[in-house]
């Protein structure tokens, strides 16, 4: 990792794309205080990750590839545990509110290990909202999910950003970044080589050629239509 310079605006969805092994994992672990950077300055929410890790941890939540839910606990127990660790006054009430908001009544009283992938991810997102940290790191949130689960997660992520939260998203799916992100950065060999909105990135390329292509439905559209979920994005 060398010379990553970037600033993320509050209240936006920032997507980080990387070519394989470009250092995305390293970047996330540094930003979430799990790894000390060798040098340079990293500021998260106004706090330095090296000298003020406690304040940084107060302002962030980490979800996805590394940070998991406790599989032996139920959904409600997970939420209550995290609420107590964030020293909230009424952990049970917080848990119930989030269960209702994320439509998690099924997961509330059964062990997470037995939940479906989409349900588990919604629970994961709900957990990362406990204590309302202003910045959320979503590390490959939809990897391994079925198309339905993916749409569910997208919907939640959009709602969260609309609610004023800053979201730092990493993904391997380019369509995901295209759908969700306000700002996109491309990390290659430890450097951010391009950064901007989708429109700005598009302008880096020659103007679009107009071609007539017969519009075939994608497999995703077919799948979602057949199972009766028409609200495809």
């Amino acid at each position, binding site marked *: 990792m060398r010379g990553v310079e970037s600033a993320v605006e509050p209240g936006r969805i920032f997507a980080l794309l990387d070519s394989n092994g470009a250092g995305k*994992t390293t970047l996330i672990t540094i930003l*979430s205080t799990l790894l000390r950077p060798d040098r340079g300055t990293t500021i998260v929410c106004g706090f330095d990750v090296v000298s003020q890790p406690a304040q940084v*941890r107060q302002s962030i*939540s980490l979800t996805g590839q*590394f*940070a998991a*839910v*406790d599989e032996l606990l139920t959904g409600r127990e997970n939420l209550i545990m995290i609420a107590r*660790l964030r020293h909230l006054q009424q952990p049970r009430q917080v848990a119930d509110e989030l269960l209702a908001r994320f439509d998690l009544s099924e997961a509330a009283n059964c062990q997470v290990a037995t939940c479906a992938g989409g349900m588990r991810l919604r629970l994961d997102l709900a957990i990362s909202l406990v204590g309302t940290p202003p910045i959320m790191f979503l590390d490959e949130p939809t990897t391994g999910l079925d198309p339905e689960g993916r749409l569910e997660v997208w919907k939640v992520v959009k709602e969260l950003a609309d609610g004023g939260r800053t979201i730092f998203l990493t993904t391997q799916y380019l369509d995901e970044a295209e759908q969700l992100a306000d700002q996109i950065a491309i990390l290659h060999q430890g450097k951010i080589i391009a950064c901007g909105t989708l429109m700005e990135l598009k302008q880096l390329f020659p103007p679009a050629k107009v071609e007539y292509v017969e519009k075939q439905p994608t497999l995703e559209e077919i799948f979602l239509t057949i199972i009766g979920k028409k609200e495809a994005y």
Partner: protein
Amino acid sequence: MLLFSDLSVMLGRSLWYIFRSMDTIITATVTPIGPLLLFVYVFGGTIQSGTANYVNYVLPRIFLVAIASGTSYTSLRLFTDVQRGIMERFRSMPIASSTLLWGHVLASLVFNAMSLLVIILVALLMGFRSSVGLLSRLAVVAILALVTLALTWLAVIPGLTARSIDGAAAFAYPLICLPFISSALVPTRSMPPVVRAFAENQPGTAIVNTIRALLAGTPVPREIWLALVWCVALLLVAYFFALRVYNKRVP
């Protein structure tokens, strides 16, 4: 105050794990009770231990085996926490860094206390008797707690560093075997010189002899200091390394 509340959440979580998997308590108890039965009823008749009651003689060693196999569950639980990624969630949260480890360690004390209680009950049924005063009993409890604490912190290290679940569990095997080469089962005078030297100087022997003397009401041997020094030294070294490994851990 916040530290205390974090710790109680973590301890609660670890205890919850233990009570949700009662099979681990059964395993941790049966593993040492098997040898207890074996040594008392199968070998006990032919072994000349110098004490009339062989259950009394062998019980301290069974305690050590129970603790060694009991603490290996701490390795397993920590390893699972690392594997499932729950560790990284806790580490990215504003809680004191060692509370997760302390939660597991304190839960291990509770877990081992339960399994030792069951073993004592079985031993009583088999004829174990001790008529010593409260102070001696408390001393035995204190030594067992110290041994458990030291071995659990030792168990934390493979739990954090192991690459596979087998690796995490394997650390306990040498510890379980160690008491065999000691005065724990038979007096050492029948052993060849080299084995005897090891047997008489390894920490297990000092601990076993101390507990045995405390339970029998005979004068406590000077080895008690050796036992205490071993335990405290192991505790400090293991604690230091465990925290070092934990704070250096990178996903």
